């Protein structure tokens, strides 16, 4: 087996036994990158020299592909936006420091929807990423580069970020495991902000065990991110030993399973996953999350509102693109932003500014925050009855480029992943099967309560085991 096909666990075992070194792993990935990246476009840039230097300095470390919104000192960090072309990070994000302290090194920068706004990576301002399982289709998004790199064996594993489904939906499209940690579990210091009450960084891997190993390295309190409580990080991988479906109370929510517009193959694969869990000993419990139907609307108020504030920092003053046409400070702002941002980012900034503007704040943002409380309470009530929820991850398998020209129909891709993001709980996407005619991967989603990643990973692992 070529080294680039390895996952984290197998790579760590080979490194420990001295079968190969970190530099061997990086060289294998670089060779694969030269062979396949032209077609797949998972990576935006790959500093081969830098990655090899780090590998020689850390001969037992496993290389990880990094979504291009996470700062690594001395590397570009463009967020796939023209406004950050040429930007070089001045420092390491906390997650990068954590990786380095736990036997990993960053290697390569992977593509994404510009500023993580999108569900197909078509909104990247800097490159096209194709689904490794069908090059005529999108890899999902916004962490489409991460998913394509892992699913296409151009990386051992990758970091993604999830605001409304940006780890889980591309993981489903590219046959990877993706974990969106609970809000506050992983530090965002040094991660370019999109919607600060939602953003989380998480692992995208080739197995649940790999996700457990990587999440353990990423998670924990960081005094540089005030949203990370000082809650101990369990040894997630060790907790997977003996993971079983026996006795697991698995919630089935009609708001997720009885939805019109769900692809029939996604429905079939989800139903089969549920039957497999039941056959492996899970107790199926019907639950209801009645405010689910409002989650999309709440998200498309809150996320653009927070984005409009966060992206105000891109003003052409301290870093990023500055317009050559500016004549005064006002036109410096308006022209630099006009030239630097792509259409979806502009749309969301305007949407966010509108819902926060005078006279509309209470009706939109204020009200959305209250409905968000009701969505959160739905999850609290459900988790009194069940250990985990099982749902589809995305309503369809990977779609063709250009399939969703209307922004609102693109947004509906995140139907199943948005409510749990709003509630701040943790969720995974685990490969479940392939569509019959098109042979496209489909993932199933598991959702657990806040800071219950250990339980989430155990259920995900038990499903992975019974699906084989």
């Amino acid at each position, binding site marked *: 087996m070529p080294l680039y096909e390895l996952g984290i666990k197998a790579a760590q075992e080979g490194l420990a036994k001295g079968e190969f070194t970190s530099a061997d792993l990086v060289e294998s990935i670089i060779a694969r990158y030269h062979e396949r990246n032209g077609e797949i476009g998972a990576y935006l840039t790959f500093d081969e020299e830098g990655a090899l230097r780090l590998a020689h300095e850390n001969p037992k470390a496993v290389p990880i592909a990094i979504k291009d919104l996470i700062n690594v000192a001395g590397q570009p960090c463009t967020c796939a936006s023209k406004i950050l072309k040429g930007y070089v990070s001045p420092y390491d994000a906390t997650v990068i420091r954590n990786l380095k302290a736990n036997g990993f090194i960053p290697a390569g920068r992977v593509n994404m929807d510009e500023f993580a706004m999108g569900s197909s990576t078509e909104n990247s301002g800097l490159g096209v990423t194709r689904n490794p399982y069908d090059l005529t289709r999108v890899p999902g998004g916004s962490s489409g580069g991460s998913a394509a790199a892992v699913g296409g064996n151009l990386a051992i594993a990758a970091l993604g970020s999830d605001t409304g489904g940006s780890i889980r939906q591309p993981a489903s499209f590219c046959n990877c495991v993706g974990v969106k940690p609970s809000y506050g579990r992983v530090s965002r210091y040094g991660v370019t902000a999109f919607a600060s009450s939602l953003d989380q960084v998480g692992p995208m891997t080739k197995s649940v065990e790999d996700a457990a190993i990587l999440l353990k390295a990423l998670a924990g309190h960081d005094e540089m991110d005030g949203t990370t409580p000082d809650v101990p990080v369990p040894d997630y991988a060790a907790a997977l030993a003996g993971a079983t479906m026996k006795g697991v109370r698995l919630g089935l929510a009609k708001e997720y399973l009885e939805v019109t517009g769900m692809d029939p193959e996604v429905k079939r694969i989800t139903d089969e996953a549920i039957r497999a869990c039941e056959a492996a000993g899970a107790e199926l419990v019907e639950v209801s999350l009645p405010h689910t139907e409002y989650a999309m609307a709440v998200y498309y108020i809150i996320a653009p509102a927070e984005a409009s504030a966060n992206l105000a920092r891109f003003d052409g003053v301290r870093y990023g693109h500055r317009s050559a046409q500016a004549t005064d400070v006002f036109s410096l702002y308006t022209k630099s932003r006009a030239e630097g941002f792509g259409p979806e980012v502009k749309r969301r900034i305007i949407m966010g500014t509108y*819902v926060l503007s005078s006279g509309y704040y209470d009706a939109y943002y204020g009200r959305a925050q209250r409905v968000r409380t009701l969505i959160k309470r739905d999850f609290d009530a459900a988790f009194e009855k069940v250990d985990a929820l099982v749902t589809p991850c995305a309503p369809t398998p990977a779609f063709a480029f250009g399939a969703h020209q209307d922004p609102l129909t693109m947004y509906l891709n995140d139907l199943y992943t948005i409510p749990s993001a709003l509630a701040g709980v943790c969720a995974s996407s685990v490969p479940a099967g392939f569509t019959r005619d098109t042979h496209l991967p489909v993932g199933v989603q598991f959702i657990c309560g806040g800071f219950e990643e250990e339980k989430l990973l155990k259920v995900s692992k038990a499903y992975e085991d019974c699906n084989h």
Partner: protein
Amino acid sequence: MKIDVAYVAELARLELTDEEKAVFQPQLESIVGYVEKISTVDVEGVEPMMHGREIVNAFREDIVRESLPVETALANAPQRVGDEFLLPKIVEGADS
């Protein structure tokens, strides 16, 4: 719902072409039309959820520590003079 896209874009410090305005106008109105479904939810007495997790007073020790060196902080500056970012004149009538 009619949105004054030109006005909101100005608030957001974004210059839009006429073509962009024409494209965004119906798109934004359709998105706003969609999100208005929350107006039917009874939120009487419901507290707003401001964050993904409730956390109060996350302070760190108020001590002086090393910050980015000036050269590093200025390394991405579009234009600079000495140790400062160079910008067009801001105050009307002042000498630059």
